[in-house]
């Protein structure tokens, strides 16, 4: 217990130090920064972050790409599930994330492919109708992916339960809309239905391909 607390404190100290370095914009070659870099490397060598306290699957009832009601808990119960929050007018990270998962999924045996549920929840439901998602998701990711849309407050509340903060899309004076995607992909276990592993946007198809067989069994990657 005592040791754990110390390590936690160290981790936060690291984050504070890195924060200041980043904001200062100065060089990071000072001796005080060196151990910081070492510890930071440790934390980023693996794509997966396994949570000590997993998230309960949010009670999201939305519309799928065919406009049918989709109850997330009911439909994905007992199935390995990846959830990502994003929007289709996103040129970079959202298609990158969907594409990486799609490529990794294709490397799995057919039986595992069928088990895996990949859920894309829009953060921009006004523009991302069921029809838009139906058009975008197969090109960005895969035909098998589930696209969900609905009321923004419902989606925002669902994301919040997973520690993902999503601001509502904001319309600029020139008519452009600024939307926001989630920072992580969350993996839910088929054994517990809890969200127990996080993946950041730097996760490669290889990282996913390596971890998916374990996630599909509900094991820790």
């Amino acid at each position: 217990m005592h040791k754990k607390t110390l390590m936690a404190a160290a981790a936060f100290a690291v984050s504070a130090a890195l924060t200041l370095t980043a904001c200062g914009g100065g060089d990071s070659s000072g001796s005080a920064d060196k151990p910081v870099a070492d510890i930071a490397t440790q934390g980023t060598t693996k794509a997966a972050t396994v949570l000590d306290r997993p998230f309960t699957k949010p009670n999201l009832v939305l519309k799928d790409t065919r406009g049918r009601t989709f109850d997330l808990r009911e439909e994905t119960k007992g199935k390995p599930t990846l959830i990502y929050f994003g929007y289709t007018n996103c040129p970079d990270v959202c298609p990158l994330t969907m594409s990486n998962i799609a490529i990794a999924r294709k490397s799995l045996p057919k039986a595992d492919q069928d088990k895996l549920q990949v859920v894309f929840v829009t953060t921009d439901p006004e523009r991302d109708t069921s029809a838009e998602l139906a058009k975008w998701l197969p090109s960005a990711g895969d035909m098998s992916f589930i696209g969900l849309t609905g009321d923004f407050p419902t989606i925002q509340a669902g994301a919040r339960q997973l520690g993902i903060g999503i601001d509502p899309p904001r319309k600029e004076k020139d008519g452009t809309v600024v939307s926001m995607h989630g920072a992580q992909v969350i993996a839910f276990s088929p054994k517990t239905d809890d969200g127990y592993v996080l993946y950041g946007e730097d996760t490669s198809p290889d990282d996913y391909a390596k971890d998916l067989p374990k996630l599909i069994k509900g094991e820790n990657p």
Partner: protein
Amino acid sequence: MNRRTSLALAAAGLTATLTLAGCSSGPTPRSSSPSPSDGSSASPGSEPQLTAADGYVPKPVGDLAAGFIVITNSGGTADKLTSVTSDLSDDVTIHKTENQKMTKVTSLDIPAGGELNLERGGNHIMFMSLKRQPEEGQKVRVELHFEKTAPMKVDLPVKPINYNPARH
């Protein structure tokens, strides 16, 4: 258990850090030597010397696309990328990304002796209402406009959707 906790926290800390790294108003060049007097090859006050490299456009999904490129300034004066034009779209803008949110900017800094790195997850060129669907292997011609340097024409090859050379 202990180790896992600390790693998770370290990861959480890193996330916070990356978020806060956006607190400076401009882009974050890899080089930390914007000063021309620190022994870089350029003489202080010399004109900006820009070169563009490693550009690409991931194959677009739908009618919008992103462009990425690294612009290096070996001169002794800072410059700015102020706009981009292309025959792919009449609506091309430059964006920064902060906190998973991308917003249009009027310019991006290219520090003296440093670089402007448009890379995945960060700053990028945004093409809206595409006039055609570029395919892998094709090229997208763009013209980069700067505050001081004359416009520069660059061909950006179209790469797979998930192409990400910056990842390590």
